[in-house]
């Protein structure tokens, strides 16, 4: 099928995009204006006429939002950074290996060549990889509007529900600040999908901080497709004493998935997949942290 007609506006700067979004919200509260970034979610919906926006503000040409900045403890990513860049850029991969792994699991190369970080976060699909990676990294999302100016939203507070964020209609997601991987921290990302490129049926991401003696100092872990949004499931109280074994990860994964209420046809099956993904991701993260420590020693 073909998309329904819409009015097209091409923004030449962030300020112009904000003006366009603000003006349309002001002009007609019922008219439906959408931002067009990579189009990899929006066009599928429009081609199937599941979405019929009245107006699109195309931000695809805003080179300023394609940039990345490396700070000492964090990396700042523009809203238009492509999934493929996150996946393959060696410098970003070194600072944010979990994000690179997550991005590499999205769709196919041609989708990753177009899809953007800001688009994925704004789309807020509960099965999407990048919103989970941002949640586990405790990223901070920067949004901006012509009327209310700039504000930041913690990744934890960004998703309201399935396909719904806490952004206002006239707000634009501009930048994302992601704390980078720290020494002693290992990452894990595991997802299960029926075929390569499909959205995941279940998936887990985690950062495990390991002390030089091999004990676990901290864990932050989350799940995708387990609820109406990505979820943090690790509970800081659940310390791991001593050197963890395979059973440690199995036990934690079982504990942290026990109360899940997935919105799927077969919640038991999804819970089981979440548990398996989480246990594997935790074990991977610990192993990576130890390997890094051994290499550094």
């Amino acid at each position, binding site marked *: *099928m*073909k*998309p*329904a*007609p*819409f*009015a*097209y506006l*091409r923004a030449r700067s962030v300020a112009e995009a904000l003006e366009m979004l603000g003006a*349309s919200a002001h*002009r*007609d509260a019922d*008219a439906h*204006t959408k931002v*067009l970034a990579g*189009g*990899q979610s929006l*066009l*599928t919906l429009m*081609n*199937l006429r599941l979405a019929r926006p*009245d*107006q*699109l503000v*195309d931000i*695809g*040409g805003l080179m300023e939002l394609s940039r990345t900045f490396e700070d000492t403890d964090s990396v700042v990513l523009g809203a238009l950074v492509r999934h*493929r860049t996150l996946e393959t850029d060696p410098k970003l991969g070194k600072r944010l290996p979990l994000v690179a792994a997550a991005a590499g699991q999205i*769709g*196919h*190369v*041609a*989708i990753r*060549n*177009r899809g953007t970080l800001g688009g994925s976060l704004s789309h807020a699909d509960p099965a999407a990889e990048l919103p989970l990676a941002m949640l586990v990294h405790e990223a901070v999302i920067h949004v901006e509007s012509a009327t209310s100016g700039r504000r930041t939203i913690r990744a934890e507070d960004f998703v309201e529900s399935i396909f719904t964020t806490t952004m206002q209609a006239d707000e634009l997601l501009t930048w994302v600040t992601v704390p980078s991987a720290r020494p002693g921290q290992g990452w894990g990302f595991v997802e299960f999908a029926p*075929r*390569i*490129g499909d959205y995941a049926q279940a998936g887990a991401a985690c950062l495990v901080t390991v002390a030089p003696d091999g004990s676990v100092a901290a864990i932050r872990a989350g799940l995708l497709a387990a609820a109406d949004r990505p979820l943090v499931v690790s509970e800081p109280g659940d310390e791991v004493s001593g050197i963890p074994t395979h059973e440690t990860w199995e036990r934690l994964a079982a504990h942290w998935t026990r109360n899940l209420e997935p919105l799927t046809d077969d919640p038991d099956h999804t819970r089981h997949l979440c548990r398996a993904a989480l246990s594997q991701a935790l074990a991977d993260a610990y192993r990576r942290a130890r390997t890094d420590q051994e290499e550094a020693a």
Partner: protein
Amino acid sequence: MTVEDAFSPLAQRVPLATTVNGRPVTLAVPARLTLADLLRDELHLTGTHLGCEHGVCGACTVLVDGRSVRSCLLFAVQVEGRSVVTVEGLQDHPTTGRIKCAMARHHGLQCGFCTPGMLVTATELIDRHPPEKPLDEACVRETMSGNICRCTGYQGIVRAVLEAAADPATGTTHEG
């Protein structure tokens, strides 16, 4: 004033200046025209095929600024100022030539509907793969999995891409 008053979306034609297969193209297009429909219906480049029109089959894959994209998931107006290369534009590209010869040898196509998308995806894969790391079967399968073929069962396609990647000399001696 409503959006409808400001501009009638049905009537809105957006000026577009882009490059397709090395040739400059300047015209006015409806905003909702996809790149695939621009290529096929306006420019008569019918090598780009449309299967699903929602991003899953890969038949419509073309290169924009040297990167593979789904032309069904791009509005024509989004390629303003960019360079589009379709399967027709890869006619004389050596990598694509090698893949075509290898596809013929390994029975990598039957009806041929998926083939243009396969050629574009495989060309990007081989051209952009770091030369120090030979392409293995797992990587070829993973990349080509974004292109659906209803006929061949993929074995011949995978073999052809691996052969074209491994040996730049083969194939150039055969006619594509």
